[in-house]
Every structure is written in structure tokens, then in C-alpha cells.
């Protein structure tokens, strides 16, 4: 029904907001986490079926462990294929990260070194996912708290090579860019300037929290539990000035507020998207 995500604002769907979505305001599409819907039946799937008749849906996976060194879990990939066939969503995305190791699932997005070897592995995994799903996927840039001594490629070069080799698209999380730059001491504007924007199919905006690490150094944590920070809004403005309007998601996964708060963030994104220059 919805072939693609519109270049307008969406929100991460929370079941507490189901009835609010009768009056969605500036929320024009929804994103759901794939793993929350890998179920045989029941109220969650019924709710999603209802929403999919009214909104374009983005399915966002958190459990494939695409950045891991081990082969993808083919049983999990089959569950994903089953969900995608049932829902036929407008988009599928996953993360440049890993979350499983040796049979254990960590429920977090873990970092990988950027090397020729890990690039080969991630390319093979993305190829496999795109082949099994029969569609192009988007891969999201991570939020980082550290980097590996063994890395030989920049994240940008890694992602550009990945796009080149697999023809996948990218999901640009602007908050992750800001968080990583602050934590790794790099320049977020430079990151955006070097990013392969032509491959971007979706943008994420979310909230972070400032803490200090054990050495009393400031560190930003990607919590998705707060309003979007002003410098992230500014960076988003820079992105869409270059890219033109893009499907833009407000992500708020923890301490989820009333729908009106999310809708206000979506309205702010919508205003900036209208101001963004066309490509």
C-alpha cells in the first residue's frame, strides 16, 4: 500500500500511543522494531495490521548483528523474512553494529573495528539480507563511546565502501553523529560533509544525556529518553540543506512521553523539512 516512506516526519510507534494516532498531527509515518513483532499472533500484530492500513511503516531491526564476525543467524533472518512478507512495509533498516556473540544476545548495539576484514564481513551480511528479503535495506551509523586501536578505515569510508559494494542505502542518525563526535573528539559537521548523502533513505533524530565517565571526562549517552538537543536540530538543518527533504524519524524509546510531546518534535522536524532545499 505504501511503497516508500514520505519525506516528512514520523515517530517510533509505542503501543501507549495507539489511540492518539487517530489524530496524528504532523506524524505521517511510523517505525517499529522488527523483533517486537516476530510473534505468531495476538494484539501486537493486530495493532500493527491496523496501523499499516493508515500509515507507511518502517521496519527497523535491532537483532540481526550485521556487524558481527560470525555468520548471520539464518533462523532469525527467516523470522524477519516472514514478518516482511506479512507486512510488506515501506522500508527496512538495521544497524552497523553487533548484538550477538556465541549464542548470547546482548540487547545492545555494540561497536566494531573498521578494517578491510570487517568491511568484507559486513558487505557479505548486507548482501545476504538483501537477497533473502528481496529488497534494498538501509544501514544506520552507530553512536560510539570508544574506538578500536585496530581500525584502519574511518566510519565514513567504511559506509561509502559498503554502499558502493552492496548498493544498500543508509539511515543517517544525526543524534548518533553528534554523540559519536563528542565522545571521540571529532567534528560532526565534517562527518556530515564527508557522508555519502546520496545513499541516505531515512534520517533519525533522538535525545541523548550528558554524563561523566570514570575519569570525570564528559560523555554523551544515546538514551532515546529525552528531547532532541538544540545542536542536533542545527546539524539536522545542515543535513537537509544538502540533501533536501528526507523521511525523518523522532526516536523516543525510554521514559516515553505523552504523544503530544512526540508530535511537537515531529512538527518541529516538519517545519525544518519544508525549509530544506530540494535536491
Amino acid at each position, binding site marked *: 500500500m505504501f511503497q516508500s516512506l514520505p519525506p516528512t516526519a514520523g515517530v517510533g510507534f509505542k503501543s501507549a500511543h495507539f489511540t492518539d494516532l487517530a489524530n496524528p498531527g504532523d506524524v505521517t509515518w511510523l517505525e517499529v522494531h522488527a523483533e517486537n513483532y516476530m510473534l505468531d499472533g495476538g494484539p501486537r500484530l493486530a495493532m500493527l495490521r491496523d496501523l499499516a492500513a493508515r500509515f507507511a511503516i518502517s521496519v527497523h531491526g535491532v537483532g540481526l548483528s550485521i556487524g558481527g564476525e560470525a555468520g548471520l543467524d539464518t533462523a532469525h533472518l527467516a523470522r524477519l523474512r516472514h514478518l516482511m512478507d506479512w507486512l510488506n512495509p515501506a522500508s527496512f533498516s538495521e544497524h552497523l553494529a553487533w548484538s550477538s556473540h556465541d549464542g548470547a544476545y*546482548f540487547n545492545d548495539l555494540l561497536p566494531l573495528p573498521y578494517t578491510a576484514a570487517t568491511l568484507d564481513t559486513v558487505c557479505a551480511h548486507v548482501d545476504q539480507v538483501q537477497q533473502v528479503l528481496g529488497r534494498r535495506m538501509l544501514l544506520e551509523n552507530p553512536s560510539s563511546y570508544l574506538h578500536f586501536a585496530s581500525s584502519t578505515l574511518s566510519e565514513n569510508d567504511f559506509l561509502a565502501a559498503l554502499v558502493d559494494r552492496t548498493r544498500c542505502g543508509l539511515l543517517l542518525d544525526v543524534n548518533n553523529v553528534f554523540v559519536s563526535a563528542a565522545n571521540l*573528539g571529532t567534528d560532526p559537521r565534517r562527518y556530515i560533509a564527508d557522508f555519502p548523502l546520496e545513499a541516505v533513505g531515512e534520517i533519525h533524530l533522538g535525545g541523548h544525556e550528558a554524563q561523566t565517565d570514570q575519569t570525570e571526562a564528559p560523555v554523551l549517552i544515546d538514551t532515546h529518553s529525552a528531547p532532541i538537543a538544540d545542536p542536533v536540530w542545527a546539524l539536522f538543518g545542515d543535513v537537509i540543506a544538502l540533501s533536501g527533504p528526507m523521511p525523518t524519524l523522532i526516536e523516543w524509546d525510554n521514559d516515553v512521553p505523552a504523544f503530544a510531546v512526540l508530535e511537537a518534535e515531529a512538527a518541529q522536524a516538519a517545519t525544518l523539512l519544508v525549509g530544506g532545499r530540494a535536491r
Partner: protein
Amino acid sequence: MSDFVGFAAALTTPDLPRPTALFDAASRGASNRYDIYRNNIAVSLTDALAANFPVVRDLVGPEFFSAMAREFLRENPPRLPIMAFYGDDLAGWLAAFPPVAGLPYLPGIARLEALRRHATHSADAASLDASQLAEIPPERLATLRLHPHPSARWMIDPQPVLAIWKRHNGQPAATDQACEILLCRPAMTVLQIAAPAGTCATMDALAAGLPLQDALPARADHSAIFAAIFAVSALSQGTNT
């Protein structure tokens, strides 16, 4: 050892040393930053477990639950990325966890919460109606095979698990006795009932494909068992002989 093996090894094991060769913004060793991932994992898995076992959490209190969850998740990390099914082995683990030995009903509560979750997320299907069974000629009943609804679940516990669960959810609870519990989700809501002795054995036998004459325990109140089964609509459409 690869970066991945080194990184994964100490994520849920605080006693193990953190991996080296990780750096922060100033290119200083970033083993302290590694603790952010350790903390994220512990918090997210504890939250997932708390969401799946709200009554267990209420019964022991949120602080005790969090401390207990940290121990559980170290020994039992999820094997699937589907958090709706995390903690299926919590009941068995609690039964062998000495600090909760004074709460003998706790493992049963955990089992009931897990069964309710599985009933919630199992396949949708139409239930067999009592009147449909009544239409079957009596001479065919003995060899009739009935099938549990895909969302039907059942358990026996020596503790008054259902009464405790109900009180915690503000529902009247009559008995404080050991019971058999039968659950099913014929539509969008899970139904559950304290079932008479022999109900679980009957459901086990039906699930194994036995005909009615072999499925009903000899010394049991068959009409009471069927009343419970139909009260929660625990059979599927479709019968065969």
C-alpha cells in the same frame, strides 16, 4: 583473539578484566567507556525481564528484582533477540535461588506470567464452541480427537499461584489452595481459570493426539473439566476421529 571475542567476553561478567586496545577521544585507553556498554546491557535486559514479570517484580520489590535480574542475566543471557520471550527459564532458576526460598510461590508466579505471555503472542484461531461438541453423536465421542487452541496453556502448582496473581491485579480470589490453571486467548484477551483436578492431564493427552476415551483421567469429574475448558475456549475448531 579477535576484537569481537575480547569485547564480548566481559560484557556480562564484571569479574573479568575489560578489553584493552579501546580508545576514547583523547586516544587514552577507554576501558572505562567499555563500562557504558556493560551498563546498557544490564539495564536493558533487567528492564526486559521486569516488563515480562511484573508480578514477580511487585512481590520482591523493584530493588531486589534488579539485583536478582543481574545474577539471572549473567547465567541466562537471551538466546533470541525477541525480548517478549526473555526469561522463560526464570521460574526454574528462581526455584534454585536461595534468597527467595522464603517465597515458595514465586517460581509458580513466574511460570504463570510466562504462560500468559506465550498465550498473548501465539497464533490467532477460532475456538470450538460447546454447542458444536453437543452436536456430535454420542457414539462418536469415545474416539473423537479434540485439539488444544494454539494459545491454550496449562500448569499445576502446589502453591495458590492463581489466587496470589489475582490479588496482585486487584481481582477477587476465592481459594488459597493448590490448583491447576488453564489459560487461553480465544480473542485478544487472555482468559484464565482455576481448573479441576485432571484438567492438565486431559489437555496433555489431547495435545498428544489421544482420543477422548483415553484423554480423560479415570477418577476425575469429566463434566467439571469440560466446563473449565469451555469457560476459556481452550479447544480449536476442527475435530477428527
